[in-house]
């Protein structure tokens, strides 16, 4: 089966800072890939590049048959965003809209769904993340964990082929991360293709089909969950040692 | 184009505009501080008086206040030159706005400052005048300077009661030359030269304050 995401020798720099230096890895359809690494290793940037939020300087990224180079157009990006959902560390819910309106916004204006159709669909994805009763609440009335689950539901409502998660539990209190991880786990079970940047080693080991360890803007090591127990490089050994 | 004589007349008028602005700022500021303090006082009556004063002044057009000052003061038996009446109206006008601006600044001083001052055993009046007021005024420096732009521009309304400031003089000149674009452009530039530095300064102060609070 051909990969749904393919990074080929991708480089990206901010001024003189080389954040990505020839990164390559694949994501198979229906699989879960976790990107781990120290902060500053380029893992979040790699994820943002997959979604076109950051433009790459060289190399090539293929995502759901969309090709991203250094000079990607606005129209190409929009087409990409129809297939790829992303959940941010800081939720980025729209504060002036209710939970339901947040979720229905894109389906109505982008997918041109009718209001009842969008409403029904929104209620369904909200049920999926366990927040059916919060349809009419405003974001500020929810806990961080609940807001993050709404953000996941908002992405799901667009029925993406691929979902990206950018350190989605980092801003949450420890007791709230569990509910978010549980939602992500069930998504993985349903066969959603997911790429996540995370600090939750146990979760990565348990759910991911493949783990990519990034260090200094490069893919340092990749493999299955077992790689965390038997690191090949001193850098991963040190990282795992600190992390676990 | 303008004759030398007309140019001289405009520059003299600009001095009157600047003078009226200065009076409005200094005296209006003094009254405004009193209003601000009354507005945050613990005494309900004082608070109510200041609140009503602000509501009335901020609900009346300055143009109408100019008229009231001009005709009203003469009724009271003061035979006033237009300039005095205009100064009176400007002082009332600016005091209400300064009062509101500085009230905002005083309220923006964190509660912990009150507590800290209390723990240093300062008398309530001392806490207010030594700790809170200086900080409050400092927080409101950018909008204060910004409001000075409004003062300068609004002195143009003194023209309606015959004060020979910039706008009045420009109208006179226009009546004899009928070159409105030229004369009013020149006057606009003169106002701009007085206002823009203030606006620029206000923005700088704001940036500085934002950096300090980050």
């Amino acid at each position, binding site marked *: 089966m051909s990969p749904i995401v393919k990074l080929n020798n991708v480089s990206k720099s901010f001024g003189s800072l080389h954040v990505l230096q020839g990164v390559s890895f694949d994501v198979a359809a229906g699989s879960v890939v976790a990107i781990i690494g120290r902060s500053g290793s380029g893992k979040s940037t790699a994820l943002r590049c997959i979604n076109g939020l950051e433009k790459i300087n060289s190399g090539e990224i293929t995502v759901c048959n969309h090709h991203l180079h250094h000079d990607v157009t606005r129209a190409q990006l929009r087409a990409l965003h129809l297939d790829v959902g992303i959940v941010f560390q*800081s939720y980025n819910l729209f504060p002036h809209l209710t939970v339901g309106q947040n979720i229905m916004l894109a389906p109505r204006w982008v997918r041109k769904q009718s209001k009842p159709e969008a409403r029904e669909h929104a209620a369904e994805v909200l049920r999926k993340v366990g927040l059916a009763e919060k349809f009419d609440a405003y974001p500020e009335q929810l806990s961080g964990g609940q807001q993050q689950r709404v953000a996941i539901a908002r992405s799901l409502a667009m029925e993406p082929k691929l979902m990206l998660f950018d350190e989605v539990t980092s801003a949450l209190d420890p007791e709230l991360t569990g509910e978010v991880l549980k939602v992500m786990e069930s998504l993985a079970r349903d066969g959603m293709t997911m790429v996540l940047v995370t600090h939750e080693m146990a979760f990565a080991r348990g759910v991911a089909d493949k783990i990519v360890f990034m260090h200094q803007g490069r893919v340092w090591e990749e493999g299955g969950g077992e790689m965390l127990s038997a690191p090949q490089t001193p850098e991963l050994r040190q990282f795992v040692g600190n992390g676990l | 184009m303008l004759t030398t004589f007309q140019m001289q007349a405009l520059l003299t008028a600009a001095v009157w505009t600047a003078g009226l602005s200065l009076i409005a700022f200094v005296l209006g500021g003094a009254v405004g501080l009193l209003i601000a303090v009354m507005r945050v006082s613990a005494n309900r009556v004082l608070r109510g008086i200041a609140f009503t004063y602000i509501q009335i002044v901020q609900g009346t057009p300055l*143009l109408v206040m100019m008229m009231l000052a001009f005709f009203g003061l003469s009724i009271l038996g003061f035979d006033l030159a237009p300039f005095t009446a205009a100064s009176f109206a400007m002082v009332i006008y600016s005091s209400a706005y300064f009062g509101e601006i500085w009230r905002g600044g005083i309220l923006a001083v964190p509660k912990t400052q009150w507590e800290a001052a209390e723990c240093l055993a300062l008398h309530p009046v001392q806490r207010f005048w030594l700790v809170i007021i200086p900080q409050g005024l400092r927080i409101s420096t950018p909008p204060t300077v910004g409001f000075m732009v409004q003062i300068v*521009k609004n002195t143009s309304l003194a023209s309606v009661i015959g004060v020979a400031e910039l706008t009045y003089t420009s109208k006179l000149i226009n009546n004899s030359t009928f070159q409105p*674009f030229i004369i009013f452009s020149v006057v606009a530039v003169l106002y701009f030269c007085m206002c823009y530095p203030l606006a620029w300064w206000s923005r700088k102060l704001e940036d500085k304050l934002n950096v300090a609070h980050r």
Partner: protein
Amino acid sequence: MTYTFDFSFLAEYWPQLLKGLAQTAQLSLLSIIFGFLLGTLLAIGRTAQSKLLRRVCAIYVEAIRNTPLLVQMFMIYFGLASVGFKLSAEFCAVLAIVINVSSYTCEIMRAGIESVRKGQREASDCLGLTWLQSLFLVVLPPATERVYPALVSQFILIMLATSLVSQISAEELTSTAARIDSMTFRSFEIYTVVALIYIGLAFVFRLGFWALSRLVFPRLRRLGTPL
């Protein structure tokens, strides 16, 4: 002091004052609506990608904000007439006020737009919304809600500023007052009455804008907290 106050002229002239009041209200609302629209457009220009567009909008705003409305009004009314455009005083009045107000609205709305975090824009991009959709659905609504109190203060100032149009002989409350004054010579009394009418109108406007905020910002209506 031997002056006796005499408000008896009111009996004869109150219909004229009412008409002036209606004209002032109409002039104000027109100026507010068009000023807000133009100002928002300028604010979008002021926060646009194009450096040239940002520059042009900034120069416009600074030029307008640092010169008196009265001078702007004279320039438009007398100036346009001098080059052959015979426009009504009322039209020139609205034009001058709209131009003036738009520059203030621009700065207020710009602050609102800049208060919307970058992540909001990113999130709507990632949901596939177009630039225009995300501007109108995601950026402008919370931006407007956040700066609404400042906008209302500005709108009240506009209402008061419409009194200036009496200086180019457009019809409204203050010019009505001047006319009654010239017939009755009860200057202080008539301007006191007019001041009271303005204070009342300012109060009504405040109330109206408060009600409007509850109507157009459902979040505010439900939660009552600032955004």
